[in-house]
């Protein structure tokens, strides 16, 4: 189990560390140690040193990871709910309703999405709530398409017709026959949505359009590190490496799950 799901276990370990480290470390993520600006790694109580204004790198890393994963999970759940509702409705009702609903999805797919999200951020201000609502609303499209495809395939399966002949009400058919049969695939795509969202959030934060100071996220840390990389490469490599590690693990796990259910 642990060997098979090593990537997932690793992400969970990282998440647990991100949650627990703040209680263990003597420094908080926004606290400035005036005595140790640009401290190198393993100097005193700063395991990974401090950044250009003297904040503890490890504490910031933990805080950034926490925010990034939180935003990712919240946004992925938004996409799950919206995607399943939209896709299942379109697939189950079918006909013109389905066509109109899926045309909308196709149309939205054709949009330069990141730019619309950036527009949203600019227009409605840069709040963290908006970050994940915005991202969630972007990322539901794939989920909706997948769920609709599954529902349409299931709808033609004889056991659904047999349920109708058995007098099972529509609502019960959707709840007891359709949803349990798409749960696996939906879970797999949820898993694949999380790294997507992590990517989008970090991208926005990198450009200064996502999570705002004093809060921090992996994207912000990468940005700070990139600005200061000629002086302190660790500031770029640590958050960048961690971000890539999380993305790789989640993608591997999600793809495995998807291959199992499709």
């Amino acid at each position, binding site marked *: 189990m642990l060997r098979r799901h090593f990537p997932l276990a690793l992400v969970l370990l990282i998440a647990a560390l991100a949650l627990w480290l703040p209680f263990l470390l003597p420094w908080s993520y926004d606290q400035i140690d005036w005595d140790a600006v640009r401290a190198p790694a393993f100097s005193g109580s700063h395991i990974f040193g401090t950044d250009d204004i003297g904040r503890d790198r490890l504490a910031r890393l933990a805080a950034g990871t926490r925010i990034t994963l939180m935003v990712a999970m919240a946004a992925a759940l938004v996409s799950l709910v919206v995607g399943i509702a939209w896709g299942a409705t379109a697939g189950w009702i079918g006909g013109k309703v389905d066509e109109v609903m899926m*045309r909308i999805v196709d*149309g939205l*797919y*054709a*949009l*330069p*999405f*990141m*730019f*619309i999200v*950036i*527009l*949203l*951020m*600019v*227009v*409605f201000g840069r709040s963290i709530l908006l970050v994940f609502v915005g991202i969630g609303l972007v990322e539901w499209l794939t989920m909706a398409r997948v769920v609709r495809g599954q529902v349409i395939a299931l709808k033609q399966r004889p056991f659904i017709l047999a349920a109708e002949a058995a007098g099972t009400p529509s609502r019960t058919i959707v709840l007891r026959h359709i949803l349990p049969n798409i749960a696996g695939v939906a879970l797999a795509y949820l898993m694949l949505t999380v*790294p997507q969202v992590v*990517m989008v959030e*970090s*991208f926005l934060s*990198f*450009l*200064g*359009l996502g999570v705002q100071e004093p809060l921090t996220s992996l*994207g912000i840390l*990468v*940005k700070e*590190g*990139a600005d200061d*990389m*000629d002086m302190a*490469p660790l500031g*770029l*490599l640590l958050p*960048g490496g961690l*971000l*890539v590690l999380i*993305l*790789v693990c989640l*993608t*591997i796990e999600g*793809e495995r799950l998807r291959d199992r259910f499709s």
Partner: protein
Amino acid sequence: MTAIPTLLVIILASFFLMRLAPGGPFDGERPLDPATQAALQQAYGLDRPLWEQAWLYISRLVQGDFGPSLVYRDFTVSELIAQGLPISLTLGGLAIVLALMIGVTAGLFAAVRAGQAADKTIMMLATVATALPTFVTGPALALFFGLWLGLLPVSGTGQGAAWLIMPVVALALPVSGAIAKLTRAGLASVLKQDHIRTARARGLPETKILFKHGLRPALVPVASYLGPAAAGLLTGAVVVETVFGLPGLGRYFVQGALNRDYPLVLGVVTLYAALIILFNLFADLIYGWLDPRMREG
């Protein structure tokens, strides 16, 4: 056929969205006096009803006039686009060509060796590549090859083509990983299909089976990925241009967005939307060639 309406919807939606925003382009550090404010509003047509502004905008757009930039006051948006677009297109175009070359070759190689160590290694690398965001690889490449090894220029569009290498590689990496996976998966499923067995029953050599009978239908998923890939590259270009200090469209967009330069942002969104739609149309054409069953839709 839905391209024009889609584009129109995008333009209008972005247009009205921008106007919903609190604050305008002239809210500088210190407030302007009301008279100047009004004069500026009038000069740029911002005092007219919204619908009228939208109509005016679109009718000018049709003639290729994107309006004046509100922030870069000496330039029109068309001039800024003319300046930035070639750089962004060069980056994006080279990146997609590179990604296709690497991705299809790697995917093909892995599919032929399905189940073997080479296949697993390539697919692992592809997964890692897809998880490499440009905003991490860009600075990291600059750090290694620019600052530490001093092989490539870190910033600007200096002499020759060396300045293109790192931005294009950073852009192409995630796309090439995705294309490799799609090619591998497409070929793996096509090679299991009946028509491959028919070709094999004819005693054709394996390479001929692969290239003549297998490859084209296997690339259908790759073709359908081209649209999203184009969008991804344009987004990635924003980062890459910022990181490597290139005067492309993406940088203007970010600057425009941060400064509420409506015409500039609108112009860039319109252009990007048009590019992506164009790319999707192009992908549709490729579909028909890859698999004639799709021509009838």
